[in-house]
């Protein structure tokens, strides 16, 4: 990470604002805009902070940036964006995109995205990325002008390649399986976590009812009154504590979600490999069949079925001049084909090498991040239990004084 942008520049997504405007179809819509602030990190400024530059971007522009990066660097595992719509909600969370909590979590997710790109050794040097951070107007047009959309592989082509490729690099096949497993296990986990959160919320909140009844009950009791009243207060505290606890857990869920979406990025790299490999295989196959054709024409033996062979049998042999011409043409094609094959091979190998390097980097990052996430989850649980212990110890004291 020697020379990456993140070291030279402080990047934050500091605010979010609701805006209304007219979209491409001239229909009025409401959207949220995010303020990106950047500041150069000077190595020697003491008490002198560089000025802050800022500009506003909306989610769709982030999407555009990411698409551009994915197409331009297909061998890189491109960091994912936070979810477009709220998923894995439990009943208290709102699924509304305009909900302030959702917007806040998205803001954090977008900042995280920018930081990840900025700390990536390859991606941080991209010019479009830099201008995304610094040039407010005209950025969209500039990106579209690069014509990256044309470079994008069609989904259909990719699907076709996935099914028909014969010899993909084993590591990529394994990686594909891994990313499928990762995706399925994380989404399952998030679903169940949401349900668990829901239930836990219920347990805590019902205890709040104790508070009210205890208080009403204490009104008619003499000796028990004080104890009941204060115990009731503790029950209220207990019931209220769940809100903060679950909000913190949402952060954990977001960290897992990032890797859920990363799985898709991994698959994209695998797909690209399969596509390239398939291309290579097709080219090699084509070359082989051309060579064969050439040989047949030259030696006059037909080893495999060919339409040409059949038609020539049916409609008469061709003249030796015609044959010569065909052989010549084929030999030219064969030579072209061999060069192409060589370059495709080279491309393929380069791709595999650089992709795998980035994948290794990704794996390390993933292991590190997930471990930290799990630890912080554990810490959260411990703190939740400590709070529980405190509340119940207090309650116990009140009860024993009744």
């Amino acid at each position: 990470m020697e020379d990456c942008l993140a070291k030279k520049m402080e990047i934050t997504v500091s605010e979010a604002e609701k805006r209304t405007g007219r979209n491409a179809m001239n229909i009025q819509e409401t959207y949220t805009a995010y303020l990106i602030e950047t500041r150069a990190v000077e190595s020697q400024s003491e008490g002198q902070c560089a000025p802050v530059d800022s500009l506003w971007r909306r989610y769709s522009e982030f999407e555009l940036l990411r698409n551009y990066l994915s197409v331009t660097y297909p061998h890189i595992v491109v960091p994912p964006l936070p979810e477009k719509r709220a998923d894995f909600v439990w009943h208290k969370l709102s699924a509304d995109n305009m909900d302030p909590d959702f917007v806040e979590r998205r803001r954090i997710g977008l900042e995280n995205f920018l930081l990840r790109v900025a700390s990536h050794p390859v991606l941080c040097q991209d010019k479009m990325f830099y201008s995304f951070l610094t040039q407010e107007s005209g950025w969209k047009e500039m990106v579209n002008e690069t014509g990256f959309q044309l470079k994008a592989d069609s989904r259909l082509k990719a699907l076709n390649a996935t099914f028909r490729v014969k010899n993909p690099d084993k590591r990529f096949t394994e990686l594909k399986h891994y990313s499928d497993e990762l995706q399925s296990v994380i989404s399952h986990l998030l679903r169940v976590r949401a349900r668990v959160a829901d239930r836990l919320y219920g347990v805590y909140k019902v205890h709040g009812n104790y508070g009210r009844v205890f208080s009403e009950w204490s009104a008619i009791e003499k000796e028990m009154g004080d104890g009941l009243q204060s115990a009731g207060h503790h029950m209220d505290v207990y019931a209220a504590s769940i809100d903060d606890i679950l909000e913190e857990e949402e952060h954990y869920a977001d960290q897992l979600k990032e890797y859920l979406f990363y799985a898709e990025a991994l698959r994209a790299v695998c797909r690209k490999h399969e596509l390239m490999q398939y291309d290579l295989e097709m080219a090699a196959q084509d070359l082989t069949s051309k060579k064969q054709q050439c040989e047949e024409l030259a030696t006059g033996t037909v080893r495999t079925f060919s339409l040409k062979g059949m038609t020539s049998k049916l409609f008469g042999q061709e003249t030796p001049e015609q044959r010569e011409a065909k052989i010549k043409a084929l030999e030219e094609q064969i030579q072209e084909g061999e060069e192409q094959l060589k370059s495709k091979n080279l491309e393929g190998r380069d791709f595999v090498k650089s992709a795998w390097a980035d994948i290794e980097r990704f794996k390390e990052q993933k292991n590190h991040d997930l471990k930290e996430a799990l630890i912080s989850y554990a810490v959260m649980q411990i703190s939740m239990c400590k709070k529980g212990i405190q509340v119940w110890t207090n309650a116990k004291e009140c009860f024993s004084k009744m």
Partner: protein
Amino acid sequence: DTSLAEVNSFSPSMPISPSSMINQYKFEDEPELRDLFITVDDPESHITAIETFITYRVVTKTSRGEFDSSEYEVRRRYQDFLWLKTKLEEAHPTLIIPPLPEKFIMKGMVERFSDEFIETRRKALHKFLNRIADHPTLTFNEDFKIFLTAQAWELSSHKKQGPGLLSRMGQTVRAVASSVRGGVKNRPEMFTEMNDYMETFSQKINVLDKIAHRIYKEEREYFSEMKEYGPIHTLWSASEEDIADSLKGVASCIDKCCKATEKRMAGLSESLLPILHEYVLYSEILMGVLKRRDQIQSELDSKVDALANKKTEKDLFSEEIGKLEDKVECANNALKADWDRWKQNMQCDMRSTFTNVAENNLCYYEE
């Protein structure tokens, strides 16, 4: 109130002053002084042509003189307990008879003869008999003794001697009816206070009962979701290398939490829920007792009114009633004191169960 003053010189065999009654009641504090030990266990089901029912074994050990032997073992069914309760209510209309478990569970959660239901009932029956044994007056009741000692055929023939079903139902029904007709005129303030208290208490305890059930239900659903949560982490660890151990650790901690939650639920269902339920029943019983007291009082009042001048045996009668009122007063106070103490202990138990769970929650994995 002249009737009260004359009570004190009347019957030597009955405890004279309220305070002496309370002293006698403190029996419960010194278990070594107990001389009657009862257990209810060993439920057995009996199948006849007409019906199926459960009997429970009732074992009594005693050192009391009036018992012929020092150990008894009999089998009783729920009907027999119901009979006993009714007889006690008849004999002592203004004493607080402990609650019996209900005939059916309306919630339909438990089937009539499921093991859980039988066990819950057995525990409640055991408590019922022991509470009677601990009560200074009820413990010497004749029907109680017969219940504990008679063989099956003896009991059924004894039962047939009592007044019929309709008259048994009569007392409380009449009491309720008379209170509906219009309150009691000369109710001493203490009992009015008690009445008000009981009304509010009854409300609150019912709500508490509902809350506790709701908490139990929520915890059960939480538990069932948690059960799925742990294994996912184990599944995940199978695809990972570096973080596999951390994931497995988390999985095992979640499983421990599951177990802790199970313990918590068991604590709830074993201590809190039954006790809340008992006190719901108690509140009904107490309302009944207060109404019966009112009814007796109104009988007294009407007699006093009607025969204000004539001093015949009606005097004795009204004195007897006045005595009964006193008895009520004492019994009520004694039980109320005991009751509050009881609840303290109950709450303490409940809370320590909870605190234990919270502490159990403290075993998460941290790498």
